[in-house]
Each structure stands twice: as structure tokens, then as C-alpha cells.
């Protein structure tokens, strides 16, 4: 018995050793180092950074651009999950149970399912460069071309500071929706068909079918989606850095925390300060994770 238990432990350890070591070396240890670097004036080149205590954190409170970035992350945290989930739910509903008889998808749903997933397959950098062209402010832009042909003024999707943030949000939603359509479709597939049929026999239309049956039974999956999208909103970087003018501009209108960390580290060579920003971002993310886990603690419906 004892031997068995020992063997079992060894068996488990042998599987876990490699990933745990990798995790310690490449995740946990940089974390701890970042906390230390955040308290130095390291500029990235010297081998002996000076220790300056919490000075970087004091400085950070007066950093207008960083707090602007935080508000952008906060806005994304609310808006990105909201738009993505609403649109994805709508599509998933139509693809699975939106058909005329309520138990199948609308016509061509197999085809749409694939099409919706396309953006997910593209690398973020590719999407960013693609949309730079889509958003071009002159006649060769995919959106402004037709607009100008109709005689309208071209819209500075990325060059107007009042519009640029919404362009970024739009691209992120566009890219994320496909995945959540698939996720929600999987969730819908696990809901027994007879529930829909029973509701239909009772005379439920598509709308009440959605709000009374689909949404409550899918709530669990929606919560997962919300957490994933929240994380995506907090650590958004590549799309902003590659797509927007002046990496988070114009006029700081699209910048996010990760972009400011990168800018301070690799452009201003203020690695100490950038690490301090990273530490703050770490606490925001952990805070979000704890909060979302607490809020979503709820009994699931068994069927």
C-alpha cells in the first residue's frame, strides 16, 4: 500500500517536473525579478542598477499617459466582452437553433460557421497591418474608398483621436467573435434538444426561446467567455502597437498599459520604471481574476 502510494507520487512527479521547472524559470522567476527591477533605476545597459526604493511607483502616479492607458484598458474591459459576447451569442443562436423550426440553424449555417472562424486563424500582426489598409484615410482605403465615392468626407479611422479607440475596439471584436461563436455553439450543443422542442410546443417564439432557454442554460459558458475576454482586454498590446499611429496614438488616444510598458522599456530605456508599470499591471490583472472568480461563483444548472 505504502509502496503503491510512493510509486504513484513518483509517477506524477515525473510528469510534472519538466513543466514546473519551465514555469519556475520562465514565469515565476521573471516575476520576482520584475519586482526587484521596479525598485531600481536600471536603464537596460549597465550591469549594476542602483536601488531607489519605491520612487518609480511615486512617479507613476503622476504619469498622465499611463493613467490614460489604464482608462483605455478599463473601457476595453467593459466594452470588448460586452460587444463580443452579444454578437457571438446572436450568431451562435442563429447557427444552431435560429432556424424556422427552432431546433436547427438557419440555412447555410455550416458555411457561416467556418467563415466566422477565419479572423481567429490570422496572426494579430497580420490583422493589424490588414486593417491599416482597410482604414486608410484616402481613396485606397477599403472603407473610405466607397465613402468618398458617395461624396462623403473620409473618416480618419486611425488618424482622428476621437475615432481611433473605436476602430481598435472594432478590430478586436471582429477578431474575437469567431472563437466565441464556436464556444457558444459547443455550449448550445450540450443543451438537450427536447428543452427547445418543449418550449416550442408551449408556443415560445425565437425571442423568448433565446432569453428563457438559451441564455440561462448557457450562462456558465458566457462567464468563461467574459473572463477570457477580460484578460484579452487587459493585456492587449500587439494590435495597438502595430496598427495605430505613433504606437498608441494619435495623441495617446489608443494607448494601453502594455504599450506604455513597452515604450518605457524599449524606447525610453527606463527598464526600472517600465517594470514598475508592469507590477501595477500585474496587480490589476490579478485583481480582475479574483474579482471575476468571486462574482461568478454560482450554482450551475444541472440537466
Amino acid at each position, binding site marked *: 500500500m505504502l509502496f503503491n502510494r510512493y510509486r504513484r507520487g513518483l509517477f506524477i512527479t515525473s510528469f510534472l517536473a519538466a513543466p514546473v521547472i519551465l514555469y519556475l524559470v520562465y514565469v515565476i522567476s521573471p516575476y520576482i525579478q520584475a519586482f526587484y527591477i521596479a525598485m531600481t*533605476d536600471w536603464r537596460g545597459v549597465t550591469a549594476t542598477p542602483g536601488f531607489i526604493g519605491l520612487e518609480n511607483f511615486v512617479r507613476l502616479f503622476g504619469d498622465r499617459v499611463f493613467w490614460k492607458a489604464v482608462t483605455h484598458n478599463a473601457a476595453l474591459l467593459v466594452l470588448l466582452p460586452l460587444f463580443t459576447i452579444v454578437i457571438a451569442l446572436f450568431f451562435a443562436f442563429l447557427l444552431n437553433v435560429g432556424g424556422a423550426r427552432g431546433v436547427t440553424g438557419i440555412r447555410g449555417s455550416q458555411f457561416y460557421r467556418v467563415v466566422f472562424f477565419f479572423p481567429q486563424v490570422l496572426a494579430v500582426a497580420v490583422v493589424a497591418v490588414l486593417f491599416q489598409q482597410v482604414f486608410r*484615410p484616402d481613396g485606397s482605403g477599403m472603407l473610405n474608398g466607397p465613402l468618398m465615392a458617395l461624396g462623403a468626407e*473620409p473618416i480618419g479611422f486611425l488618424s482622428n483621436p476621437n475615432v481611433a479607440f473605436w476602430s481598435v475596439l472594432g478590430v478586436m471584436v471582429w477578431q474575437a467573435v469567431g472563437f466565441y461563436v464556436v464556444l457558444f455553439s459547443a455550449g448550445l450543443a450540450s443543451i438537450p434538444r427536447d428543452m427547445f422542442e418543449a418550449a416550442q410546443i408551449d408556443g415560445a417564439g425565437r425571442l423568448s426561446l433565446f432569453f428563457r432557454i438559451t441564455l440561462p442554460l448557457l450562462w456558465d459558458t458566457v462567464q468563461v467567455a467574459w*473572463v477570457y475576454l477580460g484578460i484579452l482586454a487587459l493585456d492587449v498590446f500587439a494590435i495597438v502597437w502595430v496598427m495605430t499611429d505613433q504606437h498608441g496614438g494619435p495623441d495617446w488616444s489608443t494607448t494601453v498599459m*502594455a504599450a506604455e510598458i513597452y515604450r518605457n522599456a524599449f524606447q525610453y530605456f527606463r527598464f526600472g520604471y517600465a517594470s514598475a508599470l508592469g507590477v501595477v499591471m500585474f496587480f490589476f490583472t490579478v485583481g480582475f481574476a479574483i474579482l471575476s472568480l468571486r462574482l461568478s461563483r454560482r450554482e450551475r444548472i444541472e440537466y
Partner: protein
Amino acid sequence: MSDTPHINRRGFLRGAALVPVAGALAACATPAAKPTASASAAPVATSAANPFGMAENKPLEVWIFDGGFGQDYAKNIHQPLFKSKHPNVEIKHNATKEITKVLQPRFAGGNPPDVIDNSGANAMDFGALAQDGQLQDLTALLDAPSWDDPNTKVRDTIDQAVIELGTYDGAFSVVGYVNYIHGIWYSQKVFKDNGWEVPKTWDEFLALCETIKKSGKMAAFTYAGKHPQYLYEPLLTMAAKIGGNEVLVNIDNLEDGAWTTDAMKTAATAWAEIGAKYLMEGTAGLDHVQTQTAQNKLKVAMLPCGSWLENEQKTTTPADFEYGMFPIPDFTGSDKMPYGTLHSQPSENFIVPSKSANPQGGMEYLRAMLSKKAAGDFSELVKTVSVVKGAGEGRELSPGAASATKALTDAGTNLVYYRWRTWYLPLDDEVKAATGELMAGGVKPEAYLERIQKKADEIKNDSSIKKYKR
């Protein structure tokens, strides 16, 4: 069954939530202090032919920024010339567009290469390098005999501005190789065909913009809207022209109210008017390549740029385009600096890391580069003006380079420059952001300058940012 490890959704999410944060933080790792190599002592005795005491058997590692000028000039001009005197030195040539990403870890690790062309958008911050004593003091290079003539010091063969601008903390440590001459660029052919004249005064410039706009043939003016530094350059040069060189000196020195002087207000107001009336449609969302290509396609007449433009556009420029450049026009008859005042600045900056394995070799390489032959061949290959005196003599220059060279000769000593841009990068980003807004009409000239002044004051009061004076 009860003791089977169970991974539930909650636990999984908890783990998953932490992963992306790690990515952001893992980027940097603490540097490890190494015993410093005592490479600064010359390994062999110095002589006239080998003024830095370079060891002939040590390899030399060279990194070139593979940008507008490419890397062929280093491989085909500089390195063969170096080899002609030092055939036994093995040159390890490298090129990259991402200087920082590739080389910053080398500095942190204590084994930087011997020569770096620290240029481009992803160059390393000279201030950070200087602050940490990573730059080799190149005073010995200035005092060494020149490659061509043992009786002339290198110091006397290059433009004075190179020494002035390459000095950090009292030590000359950065060699700007190219003389960037800034101005308004146009097609000499287009101007001739349409009977347009190069404007000498601001009123003439506005009138010309109006004429071009009314002609319906093309837009009058554009700039790289995505990169507003292309526009703050003529704005600052104009302010210096109106108010004198001290306008820029005060800005560089972070003097109180340096940005909000009358000269700056006049210049900002003048350019805001161009922004409101004469910009090519969509300018704000286009980058330098797109606007410059629009000029090549005759969609716009003029744009502000530097003397690298001609080489950068060589693949899209029509054969008979004939680039030309004119200086910032007189704003009033009483401008402090005369017509022809130019912003010229040595650039394409070469450094020798002090902690490299072979800094003597690095300096010798720079000495070769600063020879007349190397600089002349370079000018011809990349269509630009180098900082080596007389290197362009007798060479066949392209129309744009010839025009810029003539403007430089005409300007004489009326040259201005500014350094805050490389000294205080956060200020640069703020001025870019604000200038974009100014040209788009989102902010009035006074508010524009106040906003920048605020950032300048912030930097002045930030003890962690090293301050420079000129």
C-alpha cells in the same frame, strides 16, 4: 476516486488568468554584473599607421542599421578599404533593422560588438548608454592622423557640428556620418512645367499654396501625418529663423517658457494655417512613404523632409522628377536669421562600445570611414551628403543631393539644430502627439505650446531623467 486530483473550471481559470501577465513581465531579466574586461588599454604599441594600437589578430564585429541606406556601403566600400590596410583583421559584418532588440541584451550581458551604426526608429538611447559609461571616448580618434594624410588630424577633416553633437558628458563619443539637411522638397520639373517659383517669403509660400490648390492639378502640401516629427521640424526651424538660434538652445536646455516664446507662437500659428487650408486630403492618416509616393505620383507639390528623401524614394521616383529642396522662407523682413538658414544635423550615428572586445579596432574602422574615399563613394552610392569635408567634390551628385549641397553652401554658418529630441524621448513623443493635433485643428497654437511646455517642465523636474546642456 476521492483522492484523484481534480482540475475544475475555477482552478483552470485561475491558472489561465496568470499566464498572459507573465508574458508582459518576463520580457526583462535582471542583469548580471560581470568583471569588466580591461579592453580599454591598447593591446599593442601605437604608431602612425596604427594610432590606436589595434591588435591585428583580433576580429572586429560591426553592426550596421539596415535602413534607408542599406548595408552595401559598409560591405562594399568601408570594409574593403579597412582591409586594404589591415588585411589580417577578420571583419564580422552584421546588419539589422532592430538595433535595440538585437544589441541591448549584448550590452546588458557585458559583451557588446565593436562598432554599431546606432540608427533608425529602433536605435538605442544614447543618453542611457552615455549615463552608464558604455560609450568609448572617441577623442583619440579626433586627434589621430586622418586616413588620407598623416599630417592632418581627423578633427580637421569633418564638420564641426559632428563634434558638437557627438559629445555626451564632455566626451566625444558619437560619430554622425551623414549630414542631414532639412527643407521643403519639391519636383524641379513640376515647378518648371507649371511656372511655379520657389518662394522666398512666407507670403509667397502661402500664395504658391493657393495657386497650386486652385490649379486643381495637385494638392499643395503634405507631411507624414502618422509621424508628426516631419512637421515639427520645419516649425522649429522657422521659430529659430524668426527668433534666433537661442530659441532652440533654450528649448534644448529646458529653460522655463522656452516653448511658449513669441517666435514659437508665430511659427505654430503659421503652420496651423497650412494644416487648416492646404494639406492633401487624408494627410493625417498617411505615413512618410505614402505621402512621399503621392508626391512622386504628382498628387502633391511639396513636403518637408531631410536629404535622405531622394535615396529613400529611388524606386518610385520618375526618372525626370528632379528633386529639389528649398529652405524655410522668410516670415517677415525682420527675422533674426537671414534667408537660407538651414536645419542641418549629422546623423546615422556610429558608436564604439567601451566594453567591447576590440574598441581600438572599432576606432580604426571609424577612421577608415572618415576618409575622403570612403565618404565620397558612400555619398555617391546612397545619394546623400556626408560630414567629411570635400568628400563630394568632383563627384556626380543626383539632383536632390546637389540641391541640398548647394543650399548648405549658401547657408554658410546660418545653421541650426536641436538635440532635445534625442535627449528627452518622452518629450519627443508628446510633441509628436501634440503636433498631429495642431495640424488637424484639434488644438489651438497657444494650447499646443502650453501643453508641450507642461511636458518639458515635467521632465525638468523629474530627477530620474538625466539633463543635458548645450
